[in-house]
């Protein structure tokens, strides 16, 4: 067994995460691979819309501006970057990266692009070929949403990313690769792990799950928050991996946050379903086999992970247009803050009705903060809160109806009950509701492509 250790970090856990993560990771200590995870279910649909408006858009633009900051350091230290930043336009992302490389005056940088996850245009022919795309959660037929479909992406695995690394890529950009794939891929590349070595693939999957939300495994969003030092300079997570798939979760020295069994366990439990059958494109992972031990300060050793063969299908993330929603906010102060907020919401709906079309009862929404909304029925609410935040809105297929509601929020200040303030955010606007439709596709129907280009 080789003594080689590979260091992989996650610098951004979602689209909009702090730019300090990746910047500090490449500067403050040793690292081999920087991974970044951008794509949530809704993200693809947003990007699809951006691309419709502008053929150059539709990828994580944050990634490109972040690259501009870190690329010289990465090249100097030999740190490779892997991100599912391509969205629905990996070629557009490639173009933007090339421009950044040129602008920085760098040469000899190889950029790998992995495509094939975007199947939106192929849906009709795939259905003809026998793919059902029934809703994985509800079993409903895809016919229900077919005419409103706005994106369809396959969660692809680690192999094409590893292929790009084999071809010498310094940066690899994918579309909808799974979060763990960006972490597993460099290990397949570095150690030559076989695609039927399910225990090792499962170990890489667990690493990916621990890393994928950035600082959520180094003290972020952690119950014992009072014990977390120096949140401002929180260290982003790194795994140190051995050829046999055992690894240590840690962070760079002299950074904030902490890594212990509880911070790692918390993240293992995040968004977990059945722990025995964690499904991924490359293997199934049994989370009940994971062993953890503290191995020095801010170091947690992980081993014992068992995996098994994957299913013959990939998961597909589809989204569809599902009408509009709007929420406005006003603050009501006491006495009788709750009663006044309730009355204000009623006045608002009554006024919308005066325009001609009432919003049906079941589409209305009222939430009064200060009355234990988040802990409803769990924590006893105070008898008479001195102030409450009214969130009032509705859902509708009719955007104009919601616009009327949006316009009638501010007038409540001068023509409703006393004790109202806090309209600084301005008039609320309706936003599109993106429906999420998870489905499956036969793996043999999906073709991924890998291209590596030197700039």
């Amino acid at each position, binding site marked *: 067994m080789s003594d080689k250790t590979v260091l992989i970090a996650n610098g951004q856990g979602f689209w909009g995460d702090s730019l300090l993560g990746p910047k500090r990771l490449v500067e403050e200590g040793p690292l081999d691979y920087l991974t970044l995870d951008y794509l949530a*279910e*809704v993200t693809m649909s947003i990007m699809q819309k951006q691309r419709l408006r502008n053929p150059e858009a539709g990828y994580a633009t944050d990634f490109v501006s972040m690259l501009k900051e870190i690329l010289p350091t990465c090249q100097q230290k030999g740190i490779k970057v892997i991100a599912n930043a391509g969205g629905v336009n990996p070629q557009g992302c490639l173009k933007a990266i090339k421009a950044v490389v040129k602008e920085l005056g760098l040469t000899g940088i190889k950029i790998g692009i992995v495509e094939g996850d975007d199947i939106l245009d192929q849906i009709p022919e795939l259905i003809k070929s026998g793919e059902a795309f029934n809703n994985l*959660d509800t079993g409903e037929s895809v016919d229900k949403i077919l005419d409103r479909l706005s994106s369809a992406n396959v969660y692809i695995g680690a192999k094409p990313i590893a292929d790009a690394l084999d071809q010498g890529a310094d940066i690899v950009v994918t579309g909808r690769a799974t979060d763990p794939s960006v972490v597993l891929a460099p290990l397949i590349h570095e150690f030559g792990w076989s695609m039927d070595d399910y225990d090792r693939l499962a170990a890489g999957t667990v690493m990916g799950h621990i890393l994928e939300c950035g600082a959520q495994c180094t003290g972020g*969003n*952690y*119950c*014992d928050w009072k014990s977390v030092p120096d949140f401002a300079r929180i260290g982003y997570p790194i795994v140190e991996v051995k050829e046999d798939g055992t690894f240590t979760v840690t962070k760079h020295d002299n950074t904030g946050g902490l890594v212990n069994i*509880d911070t790692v*366990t*918390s*993240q*293992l*439990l*995040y*968004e*977990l*379903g*059945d*722990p*025995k059958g964690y499904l991924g494109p490359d293997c199934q992972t049994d*989370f*009940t*086999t*994971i*062993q*953890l031990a503290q191995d020095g300060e801010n170091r947690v050793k992980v081993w014992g992970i068992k995996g098994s063969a994957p299913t013959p299908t990939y998961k597909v993330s589809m*989204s569809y247009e*599902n009408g509009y*929603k709007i*929420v406005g906010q006003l603050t009501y102060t006491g006495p009788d803050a709750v009663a006044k907020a309730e009355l204000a919401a009623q006045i608002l709906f009554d006024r919308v009705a005066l325009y001609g079309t009432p919003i049906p009862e079941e589409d209305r*929404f009222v*939430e009064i*903060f200060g009355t234990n*909304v*988040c*802990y*409803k*029925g*769990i*924590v006893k609410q105070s008898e008479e809160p001195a102030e409450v935040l009214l*969130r009032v*809105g509705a*859902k509708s297929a009719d955007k104009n109806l919601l616009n009327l509601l949006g316009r009638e929020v501010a007038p409540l200040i001068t023509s409703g009950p006393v004790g109202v303030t806090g309209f600084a955010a301005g008039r609320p606007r309706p936003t599109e*509701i*993106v*429906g*999420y439709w*998870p489905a499956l596709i036969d793996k043999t129907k999906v073709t991924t492509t890998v291209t590596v280009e030197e700039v």
Partner: protein
Amino acid sequence: MAKVKLMDIAIARSGDKGDGSNVGIKARTPELYQFLKETLTTEKVKQHFSEICFGDVTRYELDNLNALNFILEDSLGGGGTETLIMDAQGKVHSLALLFMEVDVPDHLLA
């Protein structure tokens, strides 16, 4: 026996799962985990979240991590992308569970 809140004997994390959420809870000691395994039934959790969770509650056990994982179906007011509620992803369902009061044998708290 001592009446304590779960937050005194466990930590938790939650997130969204379709139109529901998952709440993972880890006991602070292996002994407390055995206690939680016996005490924290799906019925109890369903009852605790009676005004938040309107679907089934499923429980999974992770003996290796001293942890239980609960799936709370229909607990986000229509699902992460469609709902209007503030806690659209069930981010604080974790702490909500930790507010539960339980009677713990004294020797487990020593």
